[in-house]
């Protein structure tokens, strides 16, 4: 358990994790009702990763994300109202309804975009890291990607490029055991994905991604290394997703009780709450208060997204170019 975290930090972390969780549960419910269009990939269960990582980042640090990006967005500070409206394809969405769940971006918050292309993010993070290096502003860029993406050529190339160019870049692979319906234990040809780091001359570490503190500590070390000119790091968070690959996935490839057991025994928020109430001055009622605030926030975001208007014909042809 890192000592540097204040009570305020811990409460913020809890709030972030809970916000992600409630956001995703809400989207799940609304999707099931047929209210939400498109392909939606939920982050529920993995909250400790995005939260533990992003707490180490400055506002002007950048993250590149993937298709399962809601958690990364929230952890990096993207406005939840804009996100919900975006998922609904509404005018008030982060991307004015043109992006959708898979393409939420907010460069002002240092969020370079969810990404529909597996392995699309790591090269972009290299680019943001290059900008930071060129500007000499001590900035860091970080890429989140999955176990599946760890087999994509673009990801490998990025690891090498970041090492060769000595970029202030951190790679966080969230190994949730599956790429769609395929087991990572089968599709990834080594024991731990972090073992690949050595082939790129960088530090690699595998941690329990259900453990907020382990994530926070590993990310802190990696981010500091990057900030201080020590080059890139590969962090593997082993964790679990609560829902299917995307909404509408019946998950028959999972063992019968798998999800129930994960929810019961490997819920990163429950685990975090237990540690907080046991080892710090934070009480259960502190957390319950946050739970309430988060619920209000998500309900409000949902209500506003539903009430928001859709973009119209005038929006179809704009934003392709700045000039043309």
């Amino acid at each position, binding site marked *: 358990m890192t000592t540097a975290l204040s009570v305020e930090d811990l409460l913020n972390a809890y709030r972030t994790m809970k916000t992600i969780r409630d956001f995703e549960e809400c989207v799940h419910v609304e999707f099931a009702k047929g209210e939400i269009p498109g392909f939606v990939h939920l982050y529920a269960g993995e909250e400790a990763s995005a939260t533990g990582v992003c707490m180490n980042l400055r506002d002007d640090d950048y993250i590149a994300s993937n298709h399962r990006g809601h958690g990364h967005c929230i952890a990096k500070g993207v406005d939840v109202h804009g996100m919900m409206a975006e998922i609904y394809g509404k005018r008030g969405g982060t991307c004015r309804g043109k992006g959708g769940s898979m393409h939420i971006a907010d460069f002002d918050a240092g969020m370079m975009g969810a990404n*529909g*292309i597996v392995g699309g993010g790591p090269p972009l993070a290299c680019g943001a890291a290059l900008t930071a290096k060129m500007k000499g502003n001590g900035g860091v860029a970080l890429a989140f990607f999955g176990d599946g993406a760890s087999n994509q050529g*673009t990801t490998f190339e990025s690891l090498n490029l970041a090492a060769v160019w000595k970029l202030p870049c951190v790679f966080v692979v969230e190994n949730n055991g599956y790429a769609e319906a395929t087991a990572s234990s*089968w599709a990834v040809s080594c024991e731990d994905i972090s073992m690949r780091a050595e082939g790129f001359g960088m530090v690699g570490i595998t941690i329990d991604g259900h453990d907020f503190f382990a994530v926070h500590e590993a990310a802190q070390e990696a981010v500091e290394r990057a900030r201080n000119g020590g080059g890139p790091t590969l962090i593997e968070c082993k964790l679990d997703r609560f829902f299917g690959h995307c909404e509408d996935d019946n998950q028959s490839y999972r063992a019968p009780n798998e999800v129930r057991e994960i929810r019961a025994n490997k819920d990163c928020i429950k685990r975090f709450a237990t540690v907080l109430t046991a080892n710090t001055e934070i009480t259960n009622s502190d957390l319950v208060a946050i739970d309430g605030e988060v619920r209000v926030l998500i309900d409000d975001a949902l209500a506003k997204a539903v009430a928001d208007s859709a*973009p119209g014909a005038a929006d179809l042809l704009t934003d392709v170019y700045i000039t043309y």
Partner: protein
Amino acid sequence: MARKILYRDAINEALDQEMARDDTVLVMGEDVVGGTGTNGEMDAWGGAFGVTKGLYGKYGDRIMDSPISESALIGAAVGAAATGMRPVCELMFIDFLGVCFDQIYNQAAKFRYMFGGKVKTPVVIRTMYGAGFRAGAQHSQCLYNIFTHIPGLKVVMPSTPYDAKGLLIQAIRDDDPVVFCEHKALYATEGEVPKESYAIPFGEANIVRKGGDVTIVALGRMVLLAGQVAETLAGDGIHCEIIDPRTTSPFDEDAVLESVGNTGRLVIVDESNPRCSMATDISSLAAQKGFEFLQAPIEMVTAPHTPVPFSGALEDLYIPSPERIDAAIRKVVAYG
């Protein structure tokens, strides 16, 4: 009465029959089985839209899941094809060609020419295209134009379950590399499909509807929309001839030119972006070889020169609509 099945099932049946007939036929792709290495069910997915489901139970190791490594996957299919197999490799969404395109156009497509005609590469790349699923800019593109541009590739775009089965069987038996493009919105469409195996030759357009007033060349899903519009227009005494090229490479020039020879008017309906596209390709064909027949400017009904928007409100405006097709036809017919 003839059997009716879904487009999706017609593809499955073609794969099934060809795998049964020829054991060099392999199927590979990401989650074309689904469940590999897990503690749950095998054949859990059968591809993102269930198209290959059931094949694993019959053909076991001849249907293979893959890591998310499209270059290696497609390249392996190409290499296997050049050394004696007939792989049918799924590129899940055509939008993903950007991570594996080299193996398609610099390798598979060029082998025969570069190697002096001494090699054959009978690989089929099955892939999904098209908008309408609120899937956003990176999962809704057409992009078949890009494959059509490349010498050495054949490009197939079935619009009906019947064509899907017959063209896929042809694709598998064909000795050249074939890109087989399936519109995701067609999977759930139904049509008559014979149970027995049959192959539809490439380069032979289907005259979907006869009519003397205007020629409509439509591609993929747009064939269905054009058909609807033609039906309404017939009520107004406008008789459309609808041509479905079925394959964009090879392309049945004669069918288009002959029809334009009769009608003198041409409308092209193509869901893809409009620059350097099949719409311009067909239009230019008519402007060169059909010039003497043309009695009106050609009209193209396409998507705009924009990425595919996510919001349903915008996506519906993006995709060529019956209204836009109707307007284009009326304009061309009213001309001169």
